């Protein structure tokens, strides 16, 4: 972690002014808001809320906004860590946060591999297929909420 702290990113965070950390933190938050808001639509639909709306009408906007939010959160997150990486690596909430993020992404990958998901943009799914996807909505919510919780609690440790 010392290399991250000593990197250019670390210098940008520490040496460019008194508002830098706050602004980077702000964009980190905006990214998370976009990610989680969009994920909620996707996951709740997977959990069979709004049955009258085919999954295919929600998934593309939701995935696009969530993906953009995730990208923004990830880039800003690296910069935030670089501010004082060694101290953050001692924070008890840092590792669990990354574990939750990895789990959430693995969950997403497995979802994308299911035949139902692969078919869902071309046709509406059957009740049975929707039921099969519901679990992914549940685990996704748990993992992203876990990541967000741990991320927030970093500041209170």
């Amino acid at each position, binding site marked *: 972690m010392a290399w991250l702290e000593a990197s250019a990113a670390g210098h940008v*965070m*520490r040496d460019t002014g*008194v*508002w*830098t*950390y*706050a602004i980077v*933190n702000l964009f980190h938050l905006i990214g998370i808001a976009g990610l989680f808001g969009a994920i909620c639509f996707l996951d709740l639909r997977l959990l069979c809320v709004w049955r009258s709306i085919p999954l295919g009408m929600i998934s593309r906007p939701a995935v696009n906004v969530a993906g953009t939010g995730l990208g923004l959160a990830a880039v800003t997150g690296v910069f935030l860590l670089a*501010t*004082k990486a060694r101290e953050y690596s001692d924070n008890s909430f840092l590792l669990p946060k990354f574990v939750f993020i990895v789990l959430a992404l693995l969950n997403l990958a497995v979802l994308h591999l299911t035949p139902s998901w692969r078919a869902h943009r071309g046709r509406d799914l059957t009740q049975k297929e929707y039921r099969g996807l519901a679990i992914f909505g549940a685990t996704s919510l748990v993992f992203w909420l876990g990541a967000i919780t741990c991320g927030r609690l970093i*500041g*209170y440790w």
Partner: protein
Amino acid sequence: MPKRILAAAALVAFFAMPAAAHHGWSGQEEKVTELTGTVTKGVSLAGPHGEMQIKVGTVLWEVTLAPPARTAAAGLKPGVIPVGATVTVRGNKSTEPGHREMKTILVVHGDKRYAVYPERN
């Protein structure tokens, strides 16, 4: 529906009026105390809070200051107080056993007073 949205907005505005800012003081002692020591790590404004470190006798204390912009606005910037200088810090110590940290509202160096939380002084 629009009436409900307006009502919600009014409620938010009402609670926003006396803006009690997050100060994260819940993990600190109620009473304000002081420490006098020598600076071992000078002021850093890297964020999210300004920080410095002092040595009181043989014990190192973490001095947590205000957020960077407010700390700088109080005149306390990196290099202003040299390492090795004697300072007195006033604030609320951490209640966590073994955690030598003080959320500091005032730093005094010689005849210079840096009130990083003016409303608390």
